[in-house]
């Protein structure tokens, strides 16, 4: 299980929890299982999210490996100028 930090405006979809536990070993599994456990997250995940894994930001990398003790933070999909 990994602990995933959810940003504030999504917490209405996680029963108000800032951190949720998900059994996932990569980014894709994490997103799939978040949607199964918390269907309210689906619209945002479909629009796009980034993932900060131990401080590193990933935008689309499905197979970015998540270790059980990784710091995992869900973030909005990032764009720049």
């Amino acid at each position, binding site marked *: 299980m990994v602990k995933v*930090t959810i*940003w*504030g*405006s*999504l*917490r*209405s979809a996680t029963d108000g929890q*800032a951190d949720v536990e998900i059994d996932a070993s990569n980014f894709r599994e994490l997103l799939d299982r978040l949607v199964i456990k918390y269907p*309210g997250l689906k*619209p*945002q995940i479909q629009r796009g999210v980034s993932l*900060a894994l*131990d*401080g*590193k*930001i*990933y*935008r*689309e*990398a499905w197979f*970015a490996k998540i270790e059980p003790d990784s*710091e995992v*933070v*869900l*973030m*909005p*999909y*990032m*764009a*720049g*100028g």
Partner: protein
Amino acid sequence: MPLDSKMNRVFKVVGTRPPRPDGVDKVTGRAMYGADATAPGMLVGRILRSPHAHAKILSIDTSAAEALKGVKAVVTSADFGVPDNLSIRDVQDNCMARGKALYHGHAVAAVAASSAAIASQALKLIKVTYEVLPHVTDVDEAMRIGAPVVQSGRVLENVAAGLSENVTSQCEFGHGDLEAGFAKADKIIERSFTTAATHQGYIEPHACLASMSSDGRGDLWCCTQGQFFVRSLCAEIMGMDASQLRVTASEIGGGFGGKTTVFIEPVALALSRKSGRPVKIVMTRDEVFKATGPTVSSSTDVKIGMTKDGRITAAEATLRYQGGAFPCETVSMGAQSAFACYDLDAVKTLGWNVLTNRPKEAAYRAPGAPMAIYAVESVVDELCQELGLDPLDVRLKNAASKGTKSSYGPTFDDIGLRATLEAAKAHPHYTAPLGPNQGRGLSCGFWFNFGGNTCVSLNINTDGTVGITEGNPDIGGSRAAISQMAAEELGIPYEKIRTIIADTNSLGYNDVTDGSRVTFAVGLATIEAARNAIKVMCGRVAKIWGIDENAVIWEDGCAKPAGGNAGSFDPMSIEEIAAISANTGGPIAGHHEVNADGAGVSFGVHIADVEVDPETGATKILRYTVFQDAGKAVHPDYVEGQMQGGAVQGIGWALNEEYIYGKDGLLQNAGFLDYRVPVASDLPDIDTVILEIPNPGHPYGVRGVGETPIVPPLATLSNAVARAIGVRIFNLPMSPPKLLKAIGQKG
């Protein structure tokens, strides 16, 4: 790719300042920009734009225009489909209004004709019947219940109830107990700020040439920051397969984020498809201001608590961003950036994106961050003044560093903020004496930086020189930096390498040149491509020498035996290996394709001295210094150029630049005479100090540098002006009339 373990390496090419490869072409006029493309039989495209801020389009009669001799095609929204994908539909509807004109200057029809004069005449013959609707251009007004609704049905599920339908998305970030944090504070300051929408102000207007053939294939030449994204958008809008549309990026006369989408390209393609002729559209400056994407304007509340000794105990911000007539997500980046410079136990940001009757916002260097950090850094400065504390010491006391849980969630790895602040404190600028009516300000800045999809091909020519093909338009010197990294890796002179930007048929998908990503991500891919080519060359030499491939190493542009046990052979140079490539297995190349991660966040600190004329309210910048962590400066000239350029754009944002709308909702200053960007005579020499704290996510330690420098100038100048005149201004720009009024009210 992680940082190379051999980081004590002495770079031979990286870190030097070779001549820019595009310099001669640009100063002699040989460089091909967007408007320079031509084709046999080419028509001139022109666009008719809405004279109203908000109006229902009841009918469009194009018959008289179509009957005009020399007119070959007229298009309206009826010539496009209705994409299922909402974001694509928004892009298309911004290029050509469908049902409603949503802002002053919104395109409603377009013509292609045999001359510019005929095209202009034809526009006058198009009869559009409008029903004018109430409009709203101010973000706070647009949020109020009862405000004119710009678009219905666009509110996302995450928006709290009880707000105007113009509020399309909401976000919230932070951690800790705010109430407990504010209870610990000796001083709490709460302020509200606004910033104006500003334009990227690139010198080259948008321009493109589209050519659709009768068999459905198309070619598009345009000035863009991302030809692959242009292809994706246009292919979807035009109902084409991506393979049938080739997009070639021209040289680019500035982008700064504003050329990361399309405005005229689908229109030119539609005109070309309808007329059967190539069609060129070049925007006027008036059109660039009215109908391309400025940045958001903002309205922000900030509350910060601080102890007497300068420790921030709690911080909170509420951000309201308007991004024009279509939904955007820019506020989420502002809300994440606002307090990123600080190590805070209790922090919260709440943000809303709001629709108004203004052009659809486009990215602008660190989108969303400058206005958020302006508000935060202004309140931090005011707290320092109130508590009698040194503003640099306070920032050092609260600075985020390795191990800090950032205000947006993740824990920082190696970052350079503290080193940057220490460099600023040690710099003579910080303690230089000031005169009457003068003030010194400073601010920190932050940007995320990105990596992204990247594809590089590196070919060893038969004479041992190297051609690199990459897919990102060069807006900040990337061709030089990429050649340098290849030269470093291959051990050959910089002059032996030529890097070009490929069209969309020549490489796999490359993300847009944005997010300060290119030197980082394309550089990373180039290093890996060079290493792959070296592996091929070592393999060829191993065959010639009859030894194991692993017994051959690469040093200084030559293959050599790995050691005494490998045998005694004279080194073979890249020229020698390339010359016999046909005999040893054929052409030699290296490739790398990656979705790069590990870009590494970036921090900067700016210091400015200003003098405000009490008679006119004009602000003169006396001295300006930029401190920034570049990870590793590959070509320091370009890094300094980015730092200076970002500072200048931020200076314009702080002092003069703003979109001005009348009560009628019409843009009043669509030109450089009335929209005042800084010119050379407005500016001092901008001094730069590059810090190099290696990014652990890049083999050479490179971080992106292009966006962060636009972040600090807004608060830097606001804080300097506040100290110069003794009054704080809460609304940007700080134009002379505004300062004069504030000075007058102070008495």
